[in-house]
């Protein structure tokens, strides 16, 4: 059985409010990936469409998008695992290609969150938790992650300034990313000035500046078998490790609140499959929906020991020139987080890094890259490892 490669990547700009329909939004990411791979629709054997459906009026968007993208009569699959949908889509594409069922598969992630208000969005996102036993208490994603932040701070002495420093790092790169929704600098002073919006309370201890923004966006990853990859692509990037895990939806069913069990398990699987250790990862994209999420990712992925993630950011080791650059495209904190498109955007960044096509944010000569993409509050976890 041959290897499996990524031969094309694309992403729309992530914006506050896209002026077009979901099919037009999906087309933007798809078009860029197809042009990147220099393919036509006939080269694609199947599509995998990824989103969180509660934002759309359209039922069963996969069929509608397949038609608009020119992918009839090929089959399409719809994949949903909340915020990790498109990483899960790539996992499915890998298995479709590895099995020999299809040679080339396009994974398209999209989300048009602007159709509904911010508080409606919080309510719908909150319903990605346990609607029977948790949501009636008035839960929302920032509050769940805030509970992890509280436990992490209490257990390890992580500070609010440590969390702010993750946002400051994200913003320093977000300014360079023309596809990011938030392109301004963020400073420590903003967090310490009570009058500044960044310091505004959301769910203690998390502040506005600790949270990523909703956005509209799409992404596309084109996956191919070894033969097609070598024939069609000058710089294929290989999928060498895949991990995926689930955990209890209700926090009452969890045992750890200073990290995410799904990230540790998915990471373990991906490292084992790839035959690499955390030390060998040259560049990473982690799911920083909140600052605390990036801090926990450092530790869950083995970039730092549990409790020592704060040392990594304090010493700037996760900056572009550090020992393990993380989220040098601005992360979700700067790019925005269009649920179904996010994983594909993270994978795109790592593919560009491994091809040495990342421009201003290029890390020095990376060979191995890692993507950590989480659905819900650690309900789903996907870790993907790529190599040149």
């Amino acid at each position, binding site marked *: 059985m041959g290897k499996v490669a990524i031969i094309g990547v694309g992403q729309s700009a992530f914006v506050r409010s896209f002026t077009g329909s979901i099919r037009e939004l999906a087309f933007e990411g798809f078009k860029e990936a197809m042009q990147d791979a220099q393919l036509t629709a006939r080269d694609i054997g199947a599509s995998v469409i990824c989103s969180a459906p509660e934002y759309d009026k359209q039922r069963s968007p996969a069929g509608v998008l397949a038609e608009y993208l020119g992918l009839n009569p090929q089959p399409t699959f719809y994949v949903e695992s909340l915020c990790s949908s498109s990483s899960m889509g790539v996992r499915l594409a890998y298995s479709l290609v590895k099995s020999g069922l299809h040679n080339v598969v396009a994974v398209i992630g999209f989300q048009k969150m602007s159709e509904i208000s911010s*508080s409606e969005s919080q309510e719908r996102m909150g319903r990605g938790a346990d609607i*029977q036993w948790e949501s009636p208490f*008035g839960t*929302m994603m920032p*509050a769940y992650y805030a*509970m992890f932040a*509280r436990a992490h701070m209490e257990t390890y002495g992580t500070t609010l300034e440590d969390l702010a420093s993750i946002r400051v790092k994200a913003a320093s790169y977000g300014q360079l990313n023309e596809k990011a929704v938030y392109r301004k600098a963020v400073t420590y002073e903003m967090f310490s000035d009570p009058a500044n919006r960044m310091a505004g*309370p*959301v769910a*203690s201890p998390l502040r506005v500046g600790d949270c990523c923004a909703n956005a509209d966006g799409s992404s596309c990853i084109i996956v191919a078998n070894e033969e097609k990859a070598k024939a069609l692509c000058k710089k294929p990037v290989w999928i060498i490790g895949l991990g995926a895990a689930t955990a209890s939806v209700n926090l009452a069913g969890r045992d750890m609140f200073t990290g995410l069990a799904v990230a540790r398990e998915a990471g373990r699987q991906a490292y084992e499959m790839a035959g690499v250790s955390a030390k060998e990862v040259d560049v990473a994209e982690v799911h920083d929906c909140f600052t605390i999420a990036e801090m926990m990712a450092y530790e869950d992925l083995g970039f730092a020991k549990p409790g020592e993630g704060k040392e990594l950011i304090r010493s700037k080791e996760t900056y572009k020139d550090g020992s393990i650059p993380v989220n040098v495209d601005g992360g979700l904190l700067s790019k925005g987080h269009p649920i179904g498109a996010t994983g594909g955007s993270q994978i795109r960044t790592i593919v560009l890094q491994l091809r040495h096509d990342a421009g201003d944010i290029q890390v020095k000569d990376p060979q191995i890259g890692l993507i950590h993409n989480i659905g819900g509050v650690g309900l789903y976890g996907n870790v993907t490892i790529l190599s040149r």
Partner: protein
Amino acid sequence: MGTVKEVDDRFKKFGTVSFTSITKTNDFIDYLENGKVMGTRCRDCGLVFFPPRADCYQCFAGNMEWFEITGSGKLVTYSKLEFAPIGFQDDVPYCIALLDYGDFKVFGRIAGDIPEQELKIGMEMKTATNTLPNGQLNYVFKQS
């Protein structure tokens, strides 16, 4: 003339806004009305569940009994919300929290009269039934 079948939708009374109305664990609501917060235990294999479940995934027996949450648990973590999802705006601010009872944990709210500054991870708290201003029922954590 058919008879109108009565729907047992007691669970719609749970919390400020309930997203579930029909469940095999509807008796939870009757217990709440009587001042009791209950979990379930599998009579066959002894596995204990909170939140309560109708089905045991370990032995598939479907032979559950209710047990009351008594005594105190330790505060695992909490967060005070300053911004709420739609439907919960009138409750702001409020704290959500998790208590650890050893064999199980309970997710819920901190009682409204306890200021955030008085909360400390590891402190002992108890779970008590509560009637919300809109007449709905839930449970809250109070100091032991």
